[in-house]
């Protein structure tokens, strides 16, 4: 019954619930695809320019897609007073947070894996910089969004206008991370500058905010 066991239990639960209904993933996939298409209408993607803007577009699409799914990930805890049971159980609350954040991370990563080939197709992309670094940047960026997103979605659980509140409080706090992931991706795709600085920023951001989320989750869960 150690900490890892609790995290794994929460993670399994969320993955299983999502697998049975697949609402979130399907919604996220289709939503991000729509955003990609709309952006293609907005910014005419010729091969030369597309490398500069596609980094921004992919992260904006993932940001909006993740936001739609994050609220949903907590509402399943509200049914049948499950959240009250979680609060009363002796299991560490941050394990609940970590399990849920990891499950959201898995879902958004699945969406990315489907989205990436589509992006390459729509924008005729091939990376001019070190494409292998994308395997580092994508998880780091995704975790930055998902970690804070899961936390703020939990904050907004009993507010009115819950769906509205999440983007309002998530986006300002995420601005440095968004800057980091967009700049790093653009640097890799366009090959014009070294993305190392931005990758380090993402790592620092993730460390700082994962710690903050883990430490403050119990406070957020047990308000009132």
């Amino acid at each position, binding site marked *: 019954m150690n900490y890892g066991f609790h995290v794994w239990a929460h993670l399994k639960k969320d993955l299983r619930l999502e697998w049975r209904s697949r609402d979130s993933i399907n919604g996220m996939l289709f939503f991000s695809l729509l955003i990609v298409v709309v952006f293609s209408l907005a910014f005419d993607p010729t091969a030369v320019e597309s490398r500069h803007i596609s980094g921004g577009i992919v992260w904006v699409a993932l940001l909006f897609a993740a936001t739609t799914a994050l609220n949903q990930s907590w509402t399943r805890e509200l049914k049948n007073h499950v959240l009250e049971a979680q609060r009363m159980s002796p299991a560490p609350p941050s394990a609940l947070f970590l399990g849920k954040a990891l499950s959201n991370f898995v879902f958004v990563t699945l969406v990315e894996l489907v989205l990436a080939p589509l992006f390459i197709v729509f924008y005729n992309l091939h990376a001019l910089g070190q494409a292998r670094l994308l395997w580092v940047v994508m998880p780091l960026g995704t975790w930055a969004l998902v970690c804070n997103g899961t936390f703020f979605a939990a*904050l907004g659980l009993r507010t*009115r206008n819950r769906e509205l509140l999440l983007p309002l409080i998530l986006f*300002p*706090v995420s601005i*440095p991370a968004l800057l980091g992931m967009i700049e790093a991706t653009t640097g890799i795709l366009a090959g014009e500058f070294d993305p190392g600085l931005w990758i380090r920023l993402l790592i620092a951001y993730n460390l700082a905010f994962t710690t*903050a989320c883990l430490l*403050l989750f119990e*406070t957020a869960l047990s*308000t009132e």
Partner: protein
Amino acid sequence: MDRSRLLKSVAVAWFLLTLGAIVYATRLALVDAPTDALQGNIFRIFFYHVPHSMLSLVWPYVNLAASAGFLFWRRRDPLRALTADAVAIASAEVTLVYATICLATGMLWGRVEWGIWWTWDYRLTSMLVLWLLFVSYLMLRALSSTGQTKTLAAVLSIFAGIDVPIVYMSIRWWRTQHPGPVFFSSDPDAGVDKSYYPAWIANIVAWAMWGLLLMAMRYALERRRQQREQDAALKAIEDSLEFTR
């Protein structure tokens, strides 16, 4: 009450002092300070803009300290925690006012002097992000359910506090890696002629006093609101009990 009468006289005295300081500082800024050789009279907006910008970077720390204090005292000393929360909301609102004035006056000045309303250089962008963070703080306070508001807002304030240095550094890197438009905002304090010093200092002091006054008044308002809330809660509890009279 002796204490409340004392506080009231202190408040009135502070208000009159502040008013005097603002009048004096404005006079120095608009009349006594020599006209700038290059920019002309539009330069005088700096005596309003720069103190507000500098102070809007100070009040957030008051908010952060108060939020941390609230979380610390929440279970240990609930009444002190309420005081901390009142300071937090007061400083958040004053921050937002000062940041708004900083952005608005900066834009007005920039339009006249540079011909552009806005530029994405690091200082402006960081100030905009600070503004966004505090708007999100106030939105959270407005939209959250009553029992939870204080704690959730305190948590968000801690997040914003961690975020501010990261924002500053990241945007600075962004703007030095990619050179922005031709006009960077140069620091007006570097190489300001000594003849401007009296106006600068007077304005900074005057607007700091004003900010403290605003915060104190908002704090008092919030404390009264909290008091009313506590009284209403107590009355509801008493009414629900059955007494044989």
